[in-house]
């Protein structure tokens, strides 16, 4: 599935929740199950500090595709990270750069992306694109 298909799939999944609580329970579930990032990568080099929750992110290029790894100290943030990684990971840099991330707004989690620096997610999304740009440059070099 390509990036947009996965986004549609997630939107589909969330459409069955008409209650915010089910939605957040699902996020919490996702957050708990997200493989935590290698502690050697949980250093200041990889950190994005929100005022509230911290986010760590790393990426590597495997066979021309980027594999992202990320983590957070807050479970809800981690749940959203799990969704994000499902969408962007394992795609080529070009694919990542070519596609917008629209699912977060569509599943009603937009407030998690407010520019308040609270949870670091918005900065993480920027970082995802930066990794893609960097690897793209490397591939073209």
């Amino acid at each position, binding site marked *: 599935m390509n990036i947009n298909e996965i986004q549609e799939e997630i939107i589909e999944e969330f459409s069955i929740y008409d209650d*915010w*609580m089910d939605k*957040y*329970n699902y996020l*919490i579930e996702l957050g708990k199950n997200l493989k935590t990032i290698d502690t050697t990568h949980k250093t200041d080099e990889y950190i994005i500090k929100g*005022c*509230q*929750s*911290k986010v760590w992110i790393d990426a590597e290029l495997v066979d021309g595709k980027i594999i992202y790894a990320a983590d957070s*100290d*807050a*479970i*809800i*943030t981690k749940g959203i990270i799990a969704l994000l990684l499902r969408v962007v990971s394992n795609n080529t840099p070009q694919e990542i750069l070519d596609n917008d991330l629209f699912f977060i707004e569509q599943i009603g989690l937009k407030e998690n992306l407010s520019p308040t620096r*609270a*949870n670091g997610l918005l900065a993480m999304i920027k970082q995802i694109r930066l990794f893609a740009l960097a690897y793209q440059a490397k591939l073209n070099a």
Partner: protein
Amino acid sequence: MRLVFATKINNVSIDINKVRADFPILSQKIYGKDLIYLDSGATAQKPQCVIDAETEMYTHWNSNIHRGVHFLSNQSTDRYEKSRTIIKDFLNAKSEKEVIFTSGTTASINLVAHSLGDFCIEKGDEIIVTEMEHHSNIVPWQLLCQRKGAVLKVIPVTDCGELNIDAFKSIISERTKIVSVAHVSNTLGTINPINEIAQIVHNYNAYFVVDGAQGVQHGKVDVQAMDCDFYAFSGHKLYAPTGIGVLYGKEEILEQMPPYMGGGDMIKEVSFNGTTFAELPLKFEAGTSNYVGAYALGEAINYVNSVGVDNIEEYEQDLLKYATNKLSTIDGLKIYGTAKNKVCTISFLLDGIHHYDTGMILDKLGIAVRTGHHCTQPLTERFNIDGIVRASFTFYNTKAEVDALYDGLLKVKQMFS
């Protein structure tokens, strides 16, 4: 020792339904649920009379103050200066000259740090703050120390969230020139023993600055009884608009201090050969003051007085007791800040649950609490935590809202278990 906020548990004499009706935002719905606003420590909501004061000013009397000779200008000026008198009385300052309008606590403290700093700080001098200070009462002093080569010292906080006064006595010295302490801690709720500290500070002939951002709204403030040299607070935490604040300072000290900002209204005469400065308080009010905010701040204080400062204190202390007891029954909930003398602010963590996660779920239940470091990073570090959940109550909150918070926290525990 007389407590600055004496707690009397009598019959509570606040008509809570009337009070709540005075604050229109309290009937706002959040995600379809009743708003439960437990974030007044960050900013207080405004009674209708304060909102109306601004509207009235802009609809009828607005005009720039002080320099005008026309009718509207006199109207504006009168309202601005009357508000200064209201504040003078509220703080029990000696004269209107001691009441300087600023844009908020942060601006007030920066004014003192610059102007008093330029007046009295030399290389090697010492300035003392506490481990529980808000960043606004740390960073200005750090910057001053950098500029002057002075040294910043820190009064430590005990496990229950009180100042370690013995440690303070051992830190203060002949080199100490300024001591700046929060009246009330925004994170822990602790009411600090201002009078006792004032005495120690003045024994060393140092200046005593009080950050009253969290103090002025919870009980009677009497700057003369406290014997502080400066007292800073923000209107927006005292039911007034944003963008207005106050610096109280003793006249004889303010007289000696050099001006901070330059501009209109703070001058006597300007010429390129030399400029002379206006008398107090205008010397420190450069440029067009937020005169509409100042007027509304006066109205906010009138409102607080009409409810009654003592009634507010009594009501909040009762609420504090109720909330502390109730929240303490939650398994795994730890309260940070258990000082004997505190305002109705309760900060806590649920065991194993991130403060941000707690805040997010409470929000969905319509409950507004604040999470994070609350601009007191040295303090959260001292307690070895990253952040904390703070419920800050005021006299428009109710026991039913405490119950809702309690229920919400049980829900949070269930969701994250």
